[in-house]
């Protein structure tokens, strides 16, 4: 490792630390801890009832609690916070006006958001599967939720940078695209991260989902591509940004 890449790593580490600290307000952390606890308790209660297809029930709970709620909401809250909050309150200048590559800033912001959003979504998703009898979806559940929360998070980092009311726009996106448009067939479903994640979750013939249109491999590739491309878009946007 040469001196330049070494200093870039140190810069990135400092940026990630700072982004995590500034985005992790006590209210946000407590809110997600409470939400996660509620989700797990509800899953445990539902899991104690008798059902003919426990796998389908596990997939439904993973969808309702994880992919439709905790994953997108955690990604939205922390993703829009890392660069969106500084852009809104004019403190972005303290990151921007430095001799730091925009891609370093972008990747650091995305990683910081992921440090917060992934545990907030994936740990409860794993616990939900663990408290259900016959937890055979735990592996797929964790993989699907992790890939979904990564894709959502990088998208919301970009959203925070390009809009002023990013939380409002993000909620609108989640309600309209992920909950409504995603049910409109595979063409419209291709716009939905949840559709890809549920496709991974529903690979078993005993599990059905109204939004599982794609093969597991296609879904994984698409989510990984989103995770790889969007930080580049964030860097481009940072390069062109007008900073207050």
């Amino acid at each position, binding site marked *: 490792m040469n001196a*330049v890449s070494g200093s870039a790593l140190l*810069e990135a580490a*400092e*940026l990630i630390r700072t982004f995590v600290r*500034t985005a992790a307000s006590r209210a946000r952390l407590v809110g997600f801890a409470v939400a996660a606890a509620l989700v797990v308790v509800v899953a445990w209660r539902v899991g104690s009832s008798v059902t003919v297809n426990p796998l389908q029930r596990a997939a439904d709970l993973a969808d309702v609690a994880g992919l439709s709620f905790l994953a997108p909401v955690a990604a939205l809250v922390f993703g829009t916070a890392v660069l969106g909050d500084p852009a809104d309150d004019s403190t972005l200048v*303290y*990151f921007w006006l*430095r*001799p*730091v590559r925009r891609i370093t800033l972008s990747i650091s912001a995305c990683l910081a958001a992921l440090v917060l959003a992934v545990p907030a979504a994936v740990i409860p998703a794993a616990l939900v599967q663990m408290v259900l009898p016959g937890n055979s979806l735990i592996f797929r559940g964790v993989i699907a939720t992790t890939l979904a929360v990564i894709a959502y998070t990088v998208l919301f980092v970009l959203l925070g940078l390009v809009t002023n009311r990013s939380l409002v726009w993000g909620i609108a996106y989640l309600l309209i695209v992920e909950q409504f448009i995603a049910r409109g067939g595979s063409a419209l479903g291709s716009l939905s991260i949840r559709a890809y994640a549920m496709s991974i979750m529903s690979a078993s013939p005993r599990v059905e989902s109204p939004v599982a249109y794609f093969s597991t491999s296609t879904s994984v590739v698409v989510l990984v591509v989103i995770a790889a491309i969007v930080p580049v878009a964030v860097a481009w946007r940072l390069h062109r940004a007008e900073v207050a």
Partner: protein
Amino acid sequence: MKPIDAVHGAPMVALDQVSKLYRGVVAVSEMTCEIGPGVTALLGPNGAGKSTVLRLACGLTPPSRGVVRIHGHDPRNEPRVYRFVGLVPQQERVLPRTTALQFVELAGRLHGVAEPRIAAIASLEAVELDPADPRDMSTYSKGMRQRAKIAQALVNGPSIIVADEPLNGLDPRQRSRMIDTLVALGSQGRCVIISSHVLDEVDRFESRVLVMAQGRLAAVGDVNRIRELMDDRPHRIRIGTDRPGVLATALMATGTLVGLQLTPEGIDVATTDVARFARVVAGEARRVDASIDEIRPLDDDLESVFRYLMEVPRGDR
């Protein structure tokens, strides 16, 4: 990121025919200037375009027209040039859940300072903040936050220091110390650019002054030159009296006025020789048996100076 060098012979900061429009509204119009070592003050009323010029000079916003260069490089396309720049922004907000030491150390680290913590401690001590203070900066007073902002701007020893209203929120002792600090940096050969709307404040920096009004560069010079321009302009004075018509006639006859208007409040006069006018006004009032309730300047503020400077043809400045 590999360091970048200054282009040999290039000015430290250069704006060439720079204009900035926001949704069709002109914020800065055809500004051309080169700024070198020493303190340079952008002076102008609120809304004159000072902050926009500072943001343009730092590359925080791209010009709509024209060219901005820092040490010969375009700051919009070359972030490495920011190793030369320390900015004290105008906004009060600082990073949340962050101590002053973390804040300044972050700046040092991102600027590639060899020992960022040691540099941050020195920088905080230079502005009289306690580096060991564990409090989040959001609990700080306005003046303490301002000092933390100044510390982060100085942590890497930049050759260009840009400070938007740097004395805001500081108490008189801190202001004095801050002025000394910035003047010392200027005398070390650094380029220190500040903005202010207070002429007396700028006076204390003993700086070159760029006067801005309505988005344009209205005048350039040292503070004495600006004061001369202020003295050259007609001063408007209101006189409250019980016999405005008679006193107005008497004053016109003295030859000290360049304008006079009777108003419901009294007489508004314009004079280019305030001292002589002051000597004759009491005598004339006594002579015509008029009592005077008030004499007060109508435009003894910078706004009127800037208006005047904008009205004077450029060749006369």
